[in-house]
C-alpha cells in the first residue's frame, strides 16, 4: 500500500470520450460579464452585512433569476434528525435551451456556505452562478437545459433539492414538490469561490459512499482550465511541490530533515502521499468532499471547482471562461459519460492509478486472511494424540519427540455461530441506541457507558454457553476460522465497492484478526481481550466528533459508513476478542 503514491505506478490522464473536445471553443465571457458578477457580489455583500435570513436571501435570488426571464422558484425543506430539525430554502432556475426538447440537463450550482468551513460564505461562487445565468441565456447553442441552483447551507440544501427532483424523498425529509422541472441531469459543476482571488482551481471529486465521477470530466476540466483560463488545476487544495515551494510551504512536516525536504523525488512522493491519504480519508468514511458528491448517487457526474485562496492572479474573468468552456464540453455529450474510468486514484492533476494497480493491495490481505482462516479450520479438524507408551518415555527422555498419531475430530460450528450472530445483533442494538435521541442529548455520558457495556457483556454472557465436548474441536479455533473467513469476504467485497474502506479494513483487521489467540495465562488473555475491545469500540470514546458526523451523514445523507462500522466491523473485531477469552 505504501507503493500506491509512487510516480512510477501512476499513468498520465487522457480524454477517452471523443465527443468532449475540451478547450476547442472560443469563449465569449468578457469583462462586461465580469462587471455583472462584480455588481452581484456587491449586492451579496450587502446581504451579508444586513444579515438576512435564509428565506429573505432566497427571495432575493429568486427575484434576480426572474429578472433574467428564467423560470425560478424556491424550495422549502425540513430534515428531521435525532438532533432536531434542519430546514432551509433552495433557489433554482431552469433555462430551457432553445430548440431542445428539454430531455437532458446540466447543473451549475453553488452552496451558500463554502467548503472552506468556519461559516465562510460562498459569495463569489454564488455571484458567479447568477452572472453566468445572465450570460448563458443569451446563446442559442445549448443542446441541454441548464439548471442553476443556489442551495442553502452546505450539504443538506442540495441533498433536499436532488431528492425532490428525482422523487426519492426519504421519510425524514419534508419538502415542497418542485415547481419547475427539466430533463435527466447528466453532468454538474459546483462552484466554490469564497476568497478574494485564486491561484489554482482545486478539483474535489469524491462522492457519497465512495462513488467517483467519470474521470473524463476531471481530465477535460484540467485541459480547459489550463488552455482556456490559464489556471493550473490542483487536486483538492494541495499545490504541487514546485508551486508550494514558491509560497514557502512544504509538503513535509517541519521535523523532517532538510536533506529529505529538498529531494525532488521525495517531495513528489510526499505530495502524492498527501493526495492519496486525503482521498482515502474521504472515500473510506463515505463522505463527499463537496456539494457535488451528493449527485453521484443519481448517476450525475459532478465535481466541485474550489478556488484555492491566494493573492492572485485569477478572478471572475478566468473562472467564467473556464466554466463556460466546460459547459460547452459537457454540452457536446451525446450520451452519458461512460468511456473513461470510474475507479481510480488521482495521485496528481495529470496522473492517476487504475483500479488494476491498487486493488491487489487490499485483495492480497484479504486472500491471506482467507487462507489463514481455512488453515485454522483444517487444524481444528485434527488433533495430535500421543500414545500412552510414548508419553511415559517422553517423561524420561525429553529430547525425543513424543510419538503419536493425527486423529480426526468433530468440529461443531453451532456455538461459534451463536457467538457470531450475537455480536452482530449486539452491533445492531448499539447502532439503534446511538442513533436515538438519548445519545444525541447525552453523548459524553452514554458513549463510555456503551463502551463499557459492550466490553463487559461477553464476559458475562460467555459462561452461559456450554463449552464443546472435550473430544470435539475447541470453540475458539472454530470461531477464529469463521471470523477470518467472514472478514476476508467482507474486505474483498468492499474493495470493489469502496476501495479505501477495504484498505482501511485490511489495515485494522488484517494482522489483529490473524493473531488472535487464547493464552494460558488469564492475565494475558484478559489484556488481549481489552485491546481488541478498544480496537472494536474504542472510537466511541476516542473520536466523539467522528461518531457524531458519521451519524449525521447516515441520517441526513444516507451514508452507510456508520451502520457498516457498527454492524459489520465492530462485531468482527469483537469476535476476535472473544477468541482470546476462551480457553
Amino acid at each position, binding site marked *: 500500500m505504501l507503493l500506491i503514491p509512487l510516480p512510477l505506478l501512476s499513468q498520465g490522464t487522457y480524454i477517452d470520450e471523443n465527443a468532449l473536445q475540451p478547450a476547442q471553443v472560443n469563449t465569449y465571457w468578457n469583462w462586461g460579464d465580469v462587471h455583472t458578477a462584480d455588481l452581484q457580489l456587491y449586492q451579496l455583500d450587502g446581504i451579508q452585512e444586513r444579515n438576512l435570513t435564509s428565506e429573505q436571501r432566497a427571495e432575493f435570488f429568486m427575484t434576480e433569476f426572474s*429578472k433574467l426571464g428564467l423560470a425560478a422558484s424556491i424550495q422549502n425543506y425540513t430534515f428531521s434528525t435525532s438532533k432536531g430539525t434542519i430546514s432551509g430554502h433552495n433557489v433554482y432556475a431552469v433555462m430551457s435551451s432553445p430548440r431542445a426538447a428539454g*430531455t437532458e440537463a446540466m447543473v451549475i450550482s453553488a452552496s451558500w456556505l463554502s467548503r472552506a468551513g468556519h461559516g465562510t460564505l460562498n459569495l463569489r461562487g454564488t455571484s458567479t452562478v447568477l452572472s453566468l445565468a445572465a450570460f448563458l441565456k443569451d446563446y442559442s447553442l445549448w443542446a441541454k437545459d441548464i439548471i442553476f441552483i443556489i442551495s442553502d447551507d452546505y450539504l443538506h440544501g442540495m441533498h433536499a433539492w436532488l431528492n425532490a427532483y*428525482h*422523487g426519492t424523498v426519504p421519510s425524514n425529509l419534508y419538502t415542497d*414538490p418542485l415547481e419547475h422541472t427539466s430533463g435527466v441531469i447528466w453532468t454538474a459543476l459546483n462552484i466554490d469561490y469564497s476568497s478574494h482571488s485564486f491561484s489554482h482551481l482545486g478539483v474535489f471529486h469524491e462522492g457519497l459512499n465512495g462513488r467517483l465521477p467519470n474521470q473524463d470530466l476531471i481530465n477535460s476540466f484540467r485541459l480547459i482550465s489550463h488552455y482556456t483560463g490559464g489556471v493550473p488545476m490542483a487536486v483538492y487544495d494541495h499545490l504541487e511541490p514546485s508551486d508550494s515551494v514558491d509560497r514557502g510551504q512544504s509538503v513535509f512536516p517541519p521535523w523532517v530533515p532538510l536533506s529529505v525536504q529538498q529531494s525532488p523525488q521525495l517531495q513528489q512522493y510526499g505530495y502524492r502521499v498527501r493526495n492519496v491519504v486525503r482521498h482515502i480519508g474521504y472515500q473510506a468514511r463515505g463522505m463527499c468532499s463537496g456539494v457535488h458528491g451528493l449527485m453521484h*448517487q443519481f*448517476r450525475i457526474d459532478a465535481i466541485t471547482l474550489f478556488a484555492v485562496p491566494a493573492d492572485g492572479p485569477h478572478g471572475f474573468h478566468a473562472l467564467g471562461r473556464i466554466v463556460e468552456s466546460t459547459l460547452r464540453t459537457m454540452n457536446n455529450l451525446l450520451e452519458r459519460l461512460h468511456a473513461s474510468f470510474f475507479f481510480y486514484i488521482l495521485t496528481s492533476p495529470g496522473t492517476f492509478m487504475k483500479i488494476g494497480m491498487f486493488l491487489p493491495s487490499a485483495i492480497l490481505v484479504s486472500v491471506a486472511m482467507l487462507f489463514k482462516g481455512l488453515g485454522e479450520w483444517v487444524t481444528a479438524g485434527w488433533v495430535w494424540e500421543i500414545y500412552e507408551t510414548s508419553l511415559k518415555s517422553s517423561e524420561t527422555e525429553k529430547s525425543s519427540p513424543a510419538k503419536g498419531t493425527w486423529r480426526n475430530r468433530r468440529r461443531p460450528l453451532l456455538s461459534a455461530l451463536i457467538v457470531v450472530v450475537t455480536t452482530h445483533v449486539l452491533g445492531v442494538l448499539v447502532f439503534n441506541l446511538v442513533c436515538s435521541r438519548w445519545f444525541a442529548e447525552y453523548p459524553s455520558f452514554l458513549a463510555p457507558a456503551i463502551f463499557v457495556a459492550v466490553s463487559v457483556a461477553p464476559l458475562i454472557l460467555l459462561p452461559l454457553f456450554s463449552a464443546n465436548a472435550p473430544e470435539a474441536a475447541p470453540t475458539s479455533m472454530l470461531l477464529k476460522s469463521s471470523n477470518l473467513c467472514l472478514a476476508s469476504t467482507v474486505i474483498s467485497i468492499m474493495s470493489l465497492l469502496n476501495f479505501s474502506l477495504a484498505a482501511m479494513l485490511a489495515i485494522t483487521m488484517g494482522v489483529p484478526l490473524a493473531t488472535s489467540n487464547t493464552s494460558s495465562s488469564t492475565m494475558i488473555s484478559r489484556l488481549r481481550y481489552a485491546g481488541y475491545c478498544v480496537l472494536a469500540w474504542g472510537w466511541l470514546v476516542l473520536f466523539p466528533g467522528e461518531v457524531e458526523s458519521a451519524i449525521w451523514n447516515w441520517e441526513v445523507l444516507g451514508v452507510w459508513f456508520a451502520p457498516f462500522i457498527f454492524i459489520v466491523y465492530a462485531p468482527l473485531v469483537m469476535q476476535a476478542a472473544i477468541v482470546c477469552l476462551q480457553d
Partner: protein
Amino acid sequence: MHRASVWIFLAHLCITSFALYRGENYREDLRVQPLRDGRVSTTFSFVTVLESAVPRNPNALGQLDESQHYALFPLTLGQILREYAITELHLTLNAGKWNYDNWGHPHEAGVGTGAELWAWMGASEVTTVDERWSGLRNALSGLFCASLGSLDSRRTLSPTVAFPLSGSTPTFSPHELRHASLPSENVCTENLTPFLKLLPCKSHAGLAALLNPQKVFDADWHGMGVHVTWKEDTGVELKLTLQAVFNPVRTSTGKRRDWNLQLLFDRSIEQSCPVASSSSITVVLPDGKDYQITPENPVHVDGLAIYDLSSSPNFTIPSNIAMYWPSEHSFQYPLPPLTPVTPLSVKRTIHGTTQTRGVLSVSVTNNSPQEISTGYLEMMPALLTLWMHTLKVEINSQIRSDLLSGLKYHPPSPQSNDRPSPSMLQAVLRIPPKTTLKISMEVSKAFLKYTEHPPDAMRGWDLPGAVFFPLPQSSHDTSLSYNWERIYTPTLLVDLPTPDFSMPYNVIILSCTLMTLIFGSVFNLLTRKWVVMEIQE
C-alpha cells in the same frame, strides 16, 4: 398558315390550362404575435385549395386513377395522397418545447416535440389500411427527408377521440385513424428545403421569401406542418404551416424586445407571389399602449393590424414591418408570481433512479375560475409498462378518484412481427377551478434483447409527450366554452437497462473465455492420472 395553326394550338393549350387553373386557389398569411416574455411568435400558413376535388375512394385502388393535373397544388404530395387514398393527413415536425404558460396556445395546435403523423383513411378490401399506412410513411419520409419510416407498428395507435377527423367524412367507406409520433426526430434545414418546394412560388417570392433557414433554425422554437383536409363544400385543402418563436431580446444588442421583419428573418419580401389570391401579414397587437408599429394605418380589427400585400398597387411591399417600444431602455421580464396564459398547465415527469422501475407523474393545473373537463391521452411505447392498479389521482395529497372517469387502457399487445404495439391510456379528468390535480402511476421498464438496442450513441429512450384534448361538446355544454385545442406535454427521456456495449467489456468477455479454455485443458492434463490398464481376457 402553318404558323397560325401553331398559335391556335398554343392558345388552346393556354385555355385548357387556364380552365384547370380555376379549380385551384392559393393564399398565404403570416401572423406575428409579440409574447409577454419578449419573444415573438410567427406563424406562416400557405393554403392551397383544390376546389371540388374528392379524396380517392380506396375501393377503387385497383383501378386506374384519374389523371392528375395541378398548377398550384404540389404534384409530389398529390401523388402520395392518391396512391394511398388518404382522406386526411397531418404531419408536424417540431423542435423545442412549446411553453404554454408564457406563450399561450399556438396558432397551429400540433406542437409536440419531434415528428407526429396521423392520417384518416377509408377502409377497403383492395389493400388494408395498415399497408397503405406503411406506404404513406415511407413516401413522406422520402419527400421530407425525415425518419418517418421508423414510425412503424411499435409506435402506431388509433386514438380516435383525441384526433378526430377535422374535415367532412366521405361516405364511400368507414374511416380509420393511424397515429404515430417520433419524439427524437431532429428538425433541420434538410426538412425545410423540401417543404419550400411544395409552395407554388418556392422561396423566391411572397411570404416564403422570408424563410431564411439561418434565422428560422436559430429561433427558440420552430416547427413545420402539413395538413391535408377535405371539406365537402370546398374540396381538398392543403395547409402548409411554419411556426417559429423568435427571441429578439437574445439576438439584439441592447436586450430590447423591438422587432422588425428584417431583424427576425434577415430577409425582406422583394415581390409578392403572383399566383396568390391573397397574401397578408397580421400582427397581433399587445395589450399595453406604449408600443409603436410601422408602417402605420393598416387595417385594425379586434386588436389585429392587417397588412394586405396582394392588394398593394404595383406590388409595393411594406418591406419591413416593425414594432418597437420607445419608452423602454431594455426589456424587463415580468416578475413572479405570473399566472399562466392558458387555462390549463401541465407538467409531466418520470421519477425513479433505478433502471427497472419508476413513477410517471402528471400534474394538471386549472388556472381558470371554472371547472374544466379534459381528455388525457398517454401513448406509451412498449418500453414502459404502466401499472393501472397503482394509478392515483390526488388533489393536495388527498385521493380523488371521482375526478377521473372513462378510463380506457390498451396494454401493449404482441404482434405478428414480434414488435409489441404501444400501450394507450385514455381518460377524462375533471379539474376543479384553481387547483392542481396529480396523477401518478408506477411503470416498469422493459429489458430489451441486445439486438433491439440501436447501434448509435445510447442517450436513453425518448417517450412521446402526453396529450390533453378538449372533449366533444355534445355531452354537456354548460360553462365549458373554452375554445382550446390539444396540449402536448414535453417529451421524456428514460434509461432502460442497457448492457455495456463498450470495448473493455468485449475484451473481458473474450479473454475470460480464452482463459477458461486454456485453464480447463491444462488442469485436465495436470490432474489426470495416466494409467496403463491391462484388460484381462
